[in-house]
């Protein structure tokens, strides 16, 4: 087990390293680098600049170094000091812009996944046990719509309904009075009151997907001989279902845990933009619209980090839960 964990850990680190190279390449992709933007800002008035001065600025920004050296400067700052550098557009540190957005994003992800599993597992199991019942048809139908309704459209529609029929917008994560205050129980409570909208919006598609997975897995398992054998031994039905096929049906949920994180991370930015949520994804889009790739790159990296960590945890948990997982892999 320790060997397996170590291998997975090393694999994750290698993946993250290559990911960081790609992200750094994206940071430098737009025309005009940090020095250009800096100079354009500094000399907006139209004073003349000698080529020598420009070269000096470029040198001081380290832009004359080879790509890999520039990358190392960037990534070592993150690894050793958790420092993402300066925003290209306004001269604030990226860390300050990110603030507690990372925490909010993490909270949203976990709340969404919690909701997804808390609903998908019981409903999926029920649908499979009572196959072709009205409940089954209803949830399967709702599931299809959940899969087909893109998150940002769902958010837009909710927004419209809330404004049209309830007279207040469902946007935001905090009431005005808590927006800038420090963390407190009152603020946490306020967050919970606002968070259900994005959580439902983000959770629906995932719920639909997991519902189908659990149901399909249950249907596969429920007719197997070990279930029949247990029934023949006289194990009560509820206990039988919970102990045998459900245990099997949960494995794909654990193994797709990281995939779910990825999906929520992928969908969250647009939803956050529509609902004006002060979290990472919203800042990502806003900074990309400003061509502030330094901020955007930092966020992309954090998102990938969250995903790779989730993947690692899901691998370990799956190996612990399901003894059939080959520990050599």
């Amino acid at each position, binding site marked *: 087990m320790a060997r397996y964990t170590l291998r997975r850990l090393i694999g994750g680190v*290698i*993946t*993250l390293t*290559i*990911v960081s190279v*790609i*992200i750094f390449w*994206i940071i430098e*992709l*737009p*025309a005009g680098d940090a020095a250009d933007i800096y100079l354009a800002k500094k000399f907006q008035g139209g004073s003349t600049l000698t080529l020598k001065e420009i070269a000096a600025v470029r040198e001081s920004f380290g832009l004359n170094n080879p790509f890999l050296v520039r990358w190392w400067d960037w990534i070592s700052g993150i690894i050793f000091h958790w420092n993402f550098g300066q925003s290209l557009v306004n001269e604030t540190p990226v860390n300050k812009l990110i603030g507690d957005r990372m925490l909010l994003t993490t909270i949203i992800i976990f709340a969404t996944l919690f909701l997804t599993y808390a609903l998908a597992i019981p409903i999926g199991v029920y649908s499979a046990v009572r*196959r*072709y019942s009205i409940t*089954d*048809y209803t949830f*399967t*139908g709702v*599931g*299809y*719509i959940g*899969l*087909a*309704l*893109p998150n*940002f*459209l769902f958010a*837009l*529609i909710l*927004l*419209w309904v809330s*404004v*049209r029929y309830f007279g207040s*917008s469902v*946007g935001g994560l905090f009431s005005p009075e808590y927006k800038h205050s420090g963390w407190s129980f009152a603020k946490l409570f306020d967050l919970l009151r606002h968070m259900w909208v994005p959580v439902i919006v983000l959770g629906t598609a995932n719920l639909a997907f997991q519902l*189908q997975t659990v*149901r*399909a897995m249950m249907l596969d398992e429920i007719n197997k001989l070990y279930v029949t054998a247990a029934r023949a031994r006289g194990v009560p039905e509820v206990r039988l279902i919970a102990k045998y096929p459900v245990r099997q049906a949960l494995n794909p949920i654990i193994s797709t845990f990281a995939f779910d994180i*990825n999906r929520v*991370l*992928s*969908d969250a*930015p*647009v939803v956050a*933009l*529509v609902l004006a949520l002060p979290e990472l*994804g919203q800042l*990502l*889009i806003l900074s*990309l*619209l400003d*061509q502030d*790739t330094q901020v*955007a*790159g930092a966020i*992309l990296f954090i*998102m*990938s980090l969250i*995903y*790779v960590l989730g*993947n690692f945890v899901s691998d370990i948990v799956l190996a612990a839960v399901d003894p059939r997982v080959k520990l050599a892999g």
Partner: protein
Amino acid sequence: MAADTLTKPPKATLNADKLAEATQWKMVWTRFKRHRLAMVSAGILSLYVLIVFFADFVAPYGATARDTNYLKGPPELVRIWDGGPARPHIDSQITIRGGVEDGFAYSVSGLDANEQIRWFVHGKKWTFLGLFDSDFHLFGVGDEQVPVERQAAPSVSSGSGTSSSSSGSGDAAGSGNSAADSNDPFASIERDENGRLKLGIGGATTTTTEAVVPAATTPPADASSAEPAIIETESARGFIHLLGTDGLGRDQFSRILVATRTSLTIGLAGLFTAFVIGLVFGGVAGFFGGWIDYFIQRLIEVVRSIPTLPLVMGLAAAFPQDWSNQKVFFFTSVILGLVGWTTLARRIRSMLLTLHDADFVVAARLAGAGPFRIITRHMLPTFFSYIVVTLAIEFPYMILAESVLSFVGLGLRAPTVSWGVLLQDAQKVEVLEQTPWLLAPAAFIVIVILAFNFLGDGLRDAADPYQESS
């Protein structure tokens, strides 16, 4: 997966003898036909394909044409009943504009020659794939899309409120349209013989000349000046807006059709790019195996480690502002392909790996068939259907990615119309509140995604040669 719950367990449509000698494609088709939802979806999708080719023909107007008399106008219902069965027509619209209450519309139901829906009318010129020109459009109202002056209806004056000075000359001008029968749409509205229209709203009665374009006619001097100036105009004749108009008076229905073409085309281009990359990488990995396979697997893992949509956005943000729309279009689809190839590559790889040791492939190899023959005669027919299925499942993601990208403002840009660009207008709460019909493109997106999901399910079940035939 779940399609089986929605369609009843199928019945075989071919009898056993015929099934035994049917070709592969015939069997696939037979199985596919049993999926009612998949068949319906296929029908809906062929409508979308028709739109892709004939958007300009079906759309009554161009994507940028403006009807300045009907800004932020709600969708117009097509009526086939007007006190009795009537030819399809839309309500006459009177747009009332005032300093305060802008865009407040008053609608009068009535059959008027110019509000009748006509088939195959002349309109804006369009070109079909650069092959031929035409100015025919499927439908429209009125003969031309030029505002037509209406004949003034005889006045039904009961004389409440102020009345305008009658110069007595009017009336003769209008000749063509005889709406003045018992069904007169304006019977309830006061008019004087000059064709001036009086309309009582909340006690305020003002008059104005019968409107042509432009909308903003000034009220006559003798209008009651105590009330805020409400100007009544009739919207231009000969425009139909099935799904309303946006803030610039552009016809939402026409724009959605044109957007459908853009979005589906770009989705297809992205899918094609992804397919080519996925085929190369997946094929190489699956066919050669070994360290190449390992390397490609790691590469796929890396690409998948960065959340998809943020990655697409990050790449698209690098588009220079001065790029032409064609260039943005092209590179958007390239990006979609660059990010979306991993699923395809994985499926192709695993398919090839399974086939590599399949009995019939081993048999062919032992019988002395060369690699080319094995690939083309034995492997390809087996996994071709899987590729089709995979493509059908992947396509909605491409469409969605483009919509999201354009929606947030990083993809296609304004003069180009795509679903995402259209929805961009609906991003603000205030806009949504005033003009909820701007959400209409959402319905088109949801329907196409649903249809592709069902089609994918149907194809997957149909293509599975090991499915037990009942």
